[in-house]
């Protein structure tokens, strides 16, 4: 609050007028206080929309519209609830727990908990970055994510809060709001709070929306302050893969998501002229973001699942961890290879002593001499100095000491394997480790090497082995000769999508002529390795969809080469256009994808954007053929990212492990009554078909996912030409991957003009068999009655 004119206080949040005494003709009032919610600066021509800074219930009606169509299908992980001391409570057969909650509400509560954790993580990340960057660059540091090419710099923030941020300081209020909302959401999970599964679900969607705001803030500030690529379709290529590091040099490995400490390392190397003396490689999103800062000085090893194998390889001489998705055993694993660890986030201190205030020389000495296995340093610049000076001193001592065994040791151990199957029973992907050990015992290491291709790197096999064999290390040992040669190219994260790109593709997307936007995002908990993600990316890029990517999925796309040795990022452009493969960046870059959909509504359709969530989401849901695919979704963050897309009406497909999120949001194409929208021009309720059919759904195989991607891009407002193009891809993929013609085309052909011309006879024959009747095309469908322009009498 800023004191103003004695009795009046003004802030962006609220206006409070206090009057000590007011005398009028009719009354005398003492200690009068008038409070007017939030005050919006009116330097922005666009008027404020209906839902600025929405509370946890402001968009409930919109949520219920979605949830009525896409009803939750709960998949309880277990029969009980164990969240309070009443429990455990048996919730089978419609029983309620001691608190009165039933199984559906309990599952929804767990989903809300997961999404709140995810949102809190991104918002906490954003808060840390914002505070750090304000300290470094000042509150007035301008927000610039794309110069003149990006006028709508913060589509999600504008849409949700009604604020148009111009400087870093403007974002403090945005994060204040996010933090408040997450607190409310988490509080709703407490015993004796929310009792309805549908209200929990509405709050899940709120968590997702808030998460998108938090992520957008995080990426905006790092792009603006650090000078990451600014909406650049030709962002540079950099190296990715196991073999990227020059192991003749000291190697620093950075792991995590929050990049300031990694940037501290790059800055120190640059300032001291040491940039060619030390290798800086990274795992997970911090690797993506440090290459956005310096594509020449930093390299990416790989996704989250590569942590153990790479540490054990002995290649890293020093490890710096920040926050999120870092293995909790990073420190003991680093000790096995005698590599010091620097923890750099208050959220991940690893039990290490806080040496932030110690002189750098003392810390370096302690690490080099091995007096401590690691330190906590909560100052990114100091991390840079300590990491570089320590790694230079320690590398020659370590001599790349590794904890991966020699091949002979693997073979000898394999001979002692009792084939008890415990490793396989612990493996999330049920990999045939016992069979591979049997072959290894005979000297054939190929089956063990094959295991690595599908391995998610969890090492649960090791914990289960009664002989304490380091089975994950055995698998890596069997593959090491191939791994060392692996080097690929990835386009570094470009950040936002330019307004001009939106202008160019907005029409074709809404009309359906660009058949869809496919967002390949999320973690690396793949059922069959990352190659399936690359396959999906190429399939849809070839088909002239716009393929976007972020995080570990963006890395997996890079890790395949064609016969000419080219990766997908070398073969396909990085522009947001048909046939492009667009790496937007790290996890916190995901709002650029949501933002593109929002900007289509704002720039192409000219809908008011400011605090106008419901109308924009309704537009996106009915017109923008976008679908998210998180094939290896693992984390709570992935859950909240997905839920941010759901509230915008964008469907998300996850891989089979995603079924463990315990809840799908499924449409029922067999229930015609579920698929009526309003015609916004007349108010008439009209059948629009099951488009998109689902909002959240786990596919069993990549083939199923690919067919579903094509289908979920169909939207009620497609033009006939657009619908025909979308159906062409759906039918073609279905025939190729399923081996048969799809059995639901009658639900998507509205009139004969929708029929793909090259498939006309086949489709007509099918429609005849189904006794299909011609329907109507509605250009202006909506789920929201208040958007009806003229009500039908």
């Amino acid at each position: 609050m800023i004191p103003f004119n004695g009795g009046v206080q003004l802030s962006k949040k609220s206006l409070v007028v206090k009057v000590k005494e007011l005398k009028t003709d009719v009354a005398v009032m003492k200690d009068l206080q008038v409070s007017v919610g939030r005050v919006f600066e009116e330097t922005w021509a666009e008027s404020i929309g209906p839902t600025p800074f929405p509370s946890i219930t402001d968009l409930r009606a919109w949520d219920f519209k979605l949830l009525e169509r896409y009803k939750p299908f709960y998949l309880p992980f277990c029969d009980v609830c164990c969240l309070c001391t009443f429990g455990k409570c048996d919730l089978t057969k419609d029983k309620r727990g001691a608190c009165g909650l039933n199984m559906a509400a309990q599952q929804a509560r767990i989903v809300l908990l997961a999404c709140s954790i995810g949102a809190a993580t991104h918002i906490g990340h954003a808060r840390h970055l914002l505070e750090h960057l304000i300290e470094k660059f000042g509150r007035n540091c301008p927000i610039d994510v794309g110069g003149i090419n990006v006028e709508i710099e913060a589509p999600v923030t504008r849409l949700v809060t009604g604020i148009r941020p111009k400087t870093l300081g403007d974002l403090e209020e945005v994060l204040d709001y996010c933090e408040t909302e997450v607190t409310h959401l988490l509080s709703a999970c407490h015993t004796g709070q929310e009792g309805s599964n549908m209200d929990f679900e509405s709050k899940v969607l709120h968590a997702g929306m808030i998460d998108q705001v938090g992520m957008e803030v995080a990426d905006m500030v790092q792009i603006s302050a650090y000078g990451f690529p600014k909406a650049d379709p030709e962002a540079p290529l950099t190296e990715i893969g196991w073999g990227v590091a020059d192991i003749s040099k000291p190697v620093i490995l950075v792991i995590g998501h929050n990049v300031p400490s990694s940037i501290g390392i790059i800055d120190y190397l640059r300032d001291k002229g040491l940039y060619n003396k030390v290798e800086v490689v990274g795992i997970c999103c911090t690797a993506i973001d440090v290459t956005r800062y310096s594509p020449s000085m930093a390299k990416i090893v790989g996704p989250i699942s590569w942590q153990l194998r790479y540490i054990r390889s002995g290649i890293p001489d020093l490890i710096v961890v920040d926050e999120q998705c870092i293995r909790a055993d990073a420190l003991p694993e680093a000790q096995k290879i005698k590599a010091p660890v620097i923890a750099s986030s208050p959220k991940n201190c690893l039990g290490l002593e806080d040496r932030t205030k110690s002189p750098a020389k003392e810390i370096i000495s302690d690490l080099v001499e091995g007096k401590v296995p690691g330190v906590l340093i909560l100052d990114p610049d100091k991390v840079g100095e300590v990491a570089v000076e320590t790694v230079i001193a320690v590398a020659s001592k370590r001599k790349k000491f590794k904890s991966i065994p020699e091949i002979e040791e693997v073979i000898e151990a394999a001979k002692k394997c009792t084939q008890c199957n415990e490793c396989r029973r612990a493996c999330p992907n049920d990999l045939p480790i016992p069979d591979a050990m049997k072959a290894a015992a005979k000297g054939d290491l190929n089956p063990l090497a094959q295991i690595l291709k599908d391995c998610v790197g969890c090492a649960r096999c090791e914990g289960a082995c009664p002989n304490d064999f380091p089975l994950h290390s055995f698998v890596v040992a069997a593959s090491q000769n191939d791994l060392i040669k692996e080097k690929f190219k990835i386009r570094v994260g470009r950040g936002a999508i330019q307004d001009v790109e939106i202008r160019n593709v907005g029409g074709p997307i809404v009309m359906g002529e660009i058949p869809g936007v496919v967002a390949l995002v999320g973690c690396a908990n793949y059922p069959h390795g990352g190659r399936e993600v690359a396959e999906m990316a190429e399939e849809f890029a070839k088909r002239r969809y716009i393929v976007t990517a972020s995080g570990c999925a963006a890395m997996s796309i890079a890790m395949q080469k064609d016969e000419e040795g080219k990766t997908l990022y070398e073969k396909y452009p990085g522009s947001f256009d048909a046939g492009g493969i667009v790496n937007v960046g790290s996890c916190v870059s995901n709002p650029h994808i949501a933002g593109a959909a929002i900007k289509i509504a704002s720039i192409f359709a000219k809908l008011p954007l400011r605090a106008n969530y419901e109308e924009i989401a309704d537009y996106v849901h009915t017109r923008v053929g976008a679908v998210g695919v998180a094939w290896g979704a693992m984390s709570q963050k992935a859950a909240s990212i997905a839920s941010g897309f759901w509230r915008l009406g964008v469907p998300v497909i996850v891989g089979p492990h995603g079924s463990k999120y315990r809840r799908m949001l499924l449409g029922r194409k067999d229930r015609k009554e579920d698929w009526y929208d309003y015609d916004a021009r007349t108010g008439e309720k009209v059948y629009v078909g099951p488009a998109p059919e689902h909002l959240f759904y786990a596919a069993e195989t990549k083939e199923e996912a690919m067919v579903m991607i094509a289908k979920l891009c169909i939207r009620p407002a497609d033009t006939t030409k657009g619908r025909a193009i979308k159906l062409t891809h759906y039918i073609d993929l279905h025939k190729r991957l399923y081996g048969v013609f799809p059995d639901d085309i009658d639900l998507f052909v509205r009139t004969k003009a929708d029929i793909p011309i090259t498939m006309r006879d086949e489709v007509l024959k099918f429609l005849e068999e189904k006794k299909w009747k011609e329907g109507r095309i509605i250009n202006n469908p909506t789920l929201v009655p208040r958007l009806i322009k003229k009500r039908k009498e």
Partner: protein
Amino acid sequence: MAEPWQTAEIPGPAKALVITKPAVVVAMIKRAKRPILVVGHKVIDTRLGGSEAIDLVIRLAKAAEIPVVATAHIVGEFIKRDFHPAAWMPAMDIGNRLKDPEWNGIDGEGQYDLALFMGMPYYMEWLILSALKHFAYKYLTTISLDRFYQPHATWSFPNTKTEEWTKNLENVISMLGEK
């Protein structure tokens, strides 16, 4: 007592009854008024004795005269073998429909009272069976025909070796009277 195949997949107080002999499956199928067989993609990369699991599934479906729902992308594999499933749809979709007491079934004749499962990824089948255990228990019995114990089913084989599993399924087919 049977244990889940994936060690940590502990279900809770309600666990599947263990199928100790194939006759149990046969009796359940014969007793059912509206049985259905849901088949996942793993039947096309699993070998049972001298043949693929999908071939055995087809023989079983024919012997029991049960409609088959093929999940994932495997419908074409059935058709290649000259067997037409009653429907194909994602695993989540058939799970969701079986959970709905109002669903009229693939043929419009009403909800099913017995659902047999085989060939999905273990954890995915585990979760779908859990959904049915919790939300469809009033009308639906579930049986896992897989090699591994599925604790959320009503009935499940225990974890068995491939040879024994093959023998069990062959016995089921034989008792049903192969057509």
